[in-house]
């Protein structure tokens, strides 16, 4: 059996929404070079809806695939719903990850939260999710 599911490999090989957004409304970055994975999320937000999302990731297959999947899951969604996205949901959508790779996928959820927090603080909105 391969290390990763076909879904993971598909998102890893053909990541969706990779890149950056100029004048993004919110940017979130988590992880660090020491631990081996860094994820950066760019959000465009219109009327509390994620109208566009892009990501950049330095990391393993699990980290890249979960960033890609997470961006697909939040695009076009209202903020309130986006903030309910969990690492578990991302992992399930990828048909699972090896146990020792779960920690890399947590970053996607964290990066999105950080980006929304950035959006809120830039716009003097209360971050109450």
């Amino acid at each position, binding site marked *: 059996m391969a290390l990763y599911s076909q879904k993971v*490999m598909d998102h*890893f*090989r053909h*990541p969706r929404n*990779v*890149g*950056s957004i100029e004048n993004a409304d919110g940017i979130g*970055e988590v992880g660090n*070079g*020491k*631990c*081996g*994975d*860094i*994820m*950066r999320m760019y959000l465009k937000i219109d009327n509390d809806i994620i109208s566009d999302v892009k990501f*950049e*990731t*330095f*990391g*393993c*297959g*699990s*980290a*890249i695939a979960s960033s890609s999947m997470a961006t697909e899951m939040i695009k076009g969604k209202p903020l309130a719903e986006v903030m309910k996205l969990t690492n578990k949901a991302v992992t399930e959508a990828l048909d699972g990850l090896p146990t*020792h*790779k779960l*920690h*890399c996928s947590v970053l996607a959820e964290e990066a999105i939260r950080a980006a929304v927090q950035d959006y809120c603080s830039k716009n003097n909105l209360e971050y109450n999710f």
Partner: protein
Amino acid sequence: MIYADNAATTKMSRSAINAMLSCMENFWGNPSSLYDFGQKAAENLNRAREIIANCIGANSSEIYFTSGGSEADNQALISAAAIGEKHGKRHIISTAFEHHAILHTLKKLERKGFEIELLDVHEDGIISPQQVGEAIREDTCLVTVMFANNEIGTVQPIEEIGKICRAKKVLFHTDAVQAAGHLPINVQTQNIDMLSISAHKFHGAKGTGILYARKGIPLTNLIEGGAQEKGKRAGTENLPAVMAMATALKDACDNMTDNNAKILALREKLIDGLAKIPHSTLNGDRNNRLPGNVSFCFEGIEGESLLLLLDDKGICASSGSACTSGSLDPSHVLLAIGRPHEIAHGSLRLTIDENNTAEEIDCIIKSVGEVVEYLRSISPLWKDKISGKREFILS
């Protein structure tokens, strides 16, 4: 498929497979049985022992068959520690970048009250005999230094280290798992007291190896049972694999000069090609390394994704990144030569052999270049370095 992971394991050679098959078909008796058919097996076992002893300059009575490199390493260290303990000596010297078969056994000995001193291996991945000489104390019972490193391929000054140990009457063990069959080994001229070998690193079968222990060094049993291996390693011998190991080792030693000339040319081509990738570095001394080892770090990318994309292009390689090991830390070897965590995560090890071709090397160079460029294009770390927000670490 381009196989470039020979340090992980090698393909069995045709002659080794034939030796194994012939044993399984023709003399599959138990070497401990007294009837003639069993004794035929025993004769073959001893012939294999002699062939292997000849390859490393030992006497056949000094060769103990084991289940591989890990067991040989464990037994060597436990035995030397037991001898030391008898004389009240509990200080062991080793290096920071040994294989885990050594490091984890040393940890175990440390918990039993031994003092473990790991020597610095410097940026070039080579320790000096002087370091060993200065570290040896009255209560030192063992020096264990690997012959050649499995990740960065650097070769240690074994003969000189052995000379110092002998002068100071300290046992000297070397893990020669990566060296056997690839570099000349002679336990006499190189002053080696104990040495570990694993057959699957030179086209033999997995799960077989040897521990060489110089005459007069009492071994401690790890496995109790029958009287095989002079009572030092119980269990009916894996004769088919032992026959394959002897054949493979003899082939490797007989053809070493020719093989290495070919492999070296490929290695230099590969290093030159990969060195053209900006912000990359070769790990370990350029010249003093195993003929087939190429180890690089590429800034701004992570090793596991590099391996997965190379796999898509049909290239088998390995990396010392944390995400390939399942732990949170990258390879202890790369950290030991002073690579920062971030750089160590972007490592790639390619280990080639005499079966690789120049066309394959061209393909590897091209593929690695493409994959590194792509991964950098989606890396926030790389973007920050290019835009000057973060400093480059590698030139």
